[in-house]
């Protein structure tokens, strides 16, 4: 089994705000060299990794996880070297004040988002300031900040990966790079088991803003797409009566939706049940909120299913997942690809 913690650390340490995913290029080259025959960046920005078939006749199976993450973008440099910024993707504004950030300017810089001192706070103290009123403290003079940090510079949560109990980890960017880790681990298992079909890993761009995944899929024309993304885990505030109770540690959640591919998904559920793979099932009848919404109708259409990894504190720098869930997802995906690969193509 791949070292999941190490892979997670490599994939989440860099900057990868939507549209700026090439900040992770070192990790991408590491993955290419270790597992694949080729890597290319398609025009919209997604990275495609291909392991060529060793024998003809297998279906072409694509595993998709998006490689972008939510973040910020600089809109103005103010006196004292403070930066105004806007959000890229849906930020949780509760966690921004006094948070550490990394500014990907001409140099990579540390910054901290300001918090308003008590004597300047008026009115209802529970109201969160809007993103347009927050600033990033760079500790630089205005002149130096202007020189190093052009308007449009991406800013991300600062990287820090922490181990919790029960093989859980806490960090940023697990949405969705933890699923990329699961996909890579699944492919490694297939390679080690002597799987001979073509394997395509798509690390797609801009899911958090415009789901540009479709551009890459149009060219790739896979026979099957397995999409993996994170899902919000059950937490106490959801209540005991909540319908959806999958939480961290429960294994992968398979999504049944009328807009992905119900037959294809039911085949996976049947496979998981028959072979005792740990999993849960959820219904998202008309939207999954992921790339799996869009891939089915790309080109002439692609049979698509969605497997999710439960995650807590989504879109924060303290996302929590269980590496056991990642391993269980990898095992399920590897097993299912082997079964699909047994089909004759065409």
């Amino acid at each position: 089994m791949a070292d999941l913690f190490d892979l997670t650390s490599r994939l989440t340490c860099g900057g990868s705000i939507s549209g700026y995913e090439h900040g992770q290029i070192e990790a991408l080259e590491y993955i290419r060299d270790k597992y694949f025959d080729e890597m290319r960046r398609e025009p919209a920005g997604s990275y495609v990794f291909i392991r060529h078939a060793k024998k003809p006749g297998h279906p072409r199976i694509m595993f998709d996880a998006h490689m972008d993450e939510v973040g910020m973008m600089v809109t103005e440099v103010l006196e004292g070297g403070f930066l105004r910024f806007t959000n890229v993707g849906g930020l949780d504004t509760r966690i921004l004040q006094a948070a550490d950030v990394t500014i990907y300017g001409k140099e990579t810089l540390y910054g901290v988002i300001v918090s308003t001192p008590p004597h300047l706070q008026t009115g209802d103290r529970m109201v969160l300031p809007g993103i347009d009123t927050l600033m990033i403290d760079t500790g630089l003079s205005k002149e130096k900040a202007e020189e190093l940090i052009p308007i449009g510079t991406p800013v991300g949560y600062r990287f820090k990966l922490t181990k919790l109990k029960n093989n859980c980890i806490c960090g940023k960017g697990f949405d969705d790079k933890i699923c990329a880790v699961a996909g890579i681990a699944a492919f490694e298992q297939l390679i080690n088991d002597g799987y001979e079909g073509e394997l395509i890993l798509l690390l797609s761009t801009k899911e958090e803003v415009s789901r540009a995944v479709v551009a890459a899929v149009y060219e790739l024309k896979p026979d099957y797409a397995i999409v993996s993304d994170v899902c919000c885990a059950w937490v106490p505030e959801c209540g005991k009566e909540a319908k959806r109770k999958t939480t961290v540690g429960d294994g992968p959640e398979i999504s049944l939706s009328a807009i992905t591919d119900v037959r294809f998904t039911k085949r996976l559920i049947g496979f998981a049940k028959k072979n005792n793979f740990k999993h849960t099932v959820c219904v998202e009848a008309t939207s999954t909120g992921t790339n799996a919404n869009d891939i089915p109708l790309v080109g002439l259409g692609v049979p698509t299913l969605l497997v999710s990894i439960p995650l807590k504190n989504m879109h924060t720098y303290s996302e929590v997942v269980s590496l056991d869930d990642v391993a269980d997802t990898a095992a399920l995906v590897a097993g299912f690809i082997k079964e699909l690969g047994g089909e004759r193509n065409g």
Partner: protein
Amino acid sequence: MAKGLELLEKLCQAFGPTSCEYEVADIICAELEGKYDEHTVDFIGNHIFRIKGTSDKKLMFSAHMDEVGLMLSSIDENGYIYFQPVGGFDIKVLCGRKLFVGDYGKEKISGLIASKAIHQQSHEERGRATPIDRMYIDIGAKSKEDAEKYVSVGDYAVFDSDFVRFGDGMIKGKAIDDRLGCAVLCDIVNYIHENKIKPDFDLYFCFTVREEVGRSGASITANRIRPDMAIVLEATAVADIAGTPDYKRVAKTGSGPAVSYMDNGTSYLPEMTNFVMDLGKKHDIPCQLKQYVSGGNDAGHIHKASGGVKTAAISCPTRYIHSASCVFNEADYDSMYRLAREAALCPVNETPLK
């Protein structure tokens, strides 16, 4: 990095919420070993290091060792841990923050302050801070029994935040309030020791407890010493950020330590405020008057203790105080150290005691 800042980094990384200051005290005791004439520890954990002077006039320096933290109050069936704040927090800096959880002498484990994701919030909940009783600590435990293997009710949590130098001479860390004051005091003791100085004042360097909860250990420290004069070294919250009018900034980072004339706990004797400001002028050390009546510190307790003590406060301007990311300017540390040192070594007849 200056020696004082190295020590400050170590002090900031220590686990020392209110009434659990022992790790901080251990570092200070090791640092000052063999450099004082007398060392007293009282029953609540205040440490007093005395360096005898040539006169009988007593000058008390005070910095508090505790930091704001959380106390674990209950553990639910899913292994999530609820907490109460120990010290004054703006709750808007808590959600999502990484923590160390534990107690003195116990292994510290990693956790974080969690609550449901933004995707799970109702329309009404968005744009509002999460109330403190709806946040909880997640350590990765599976159940109450599992969590109790690692933590107990009554344990503490403090921010997990490293010491970072950034920008033009800025430093970010947790617990700058008031480990910075502690580091400055250690630096002064080191200076006196290394240069074999015999001060005029009988000097008492006090590292106190429980400042952050308002029932400060500094009051009984002053009662024990019965000083003639006291100087409190602190970190003070400033609004030194873009868009804030100067008069509301409290003080500017990089312009030297702030000297108080009034805050929410003390109206300082003008002779004490002037004494410190004049000392800065005389020795060409940058310092500034605190420009806004806000905050409070141990001076509020000390000036009323022991029948009354002439008291001054010197504070390092600090942004985002009581958060995981306090920010100050390292030049201010140096100025604060030099100003406090000149006060410590000042002949008695050049002070308000003459």
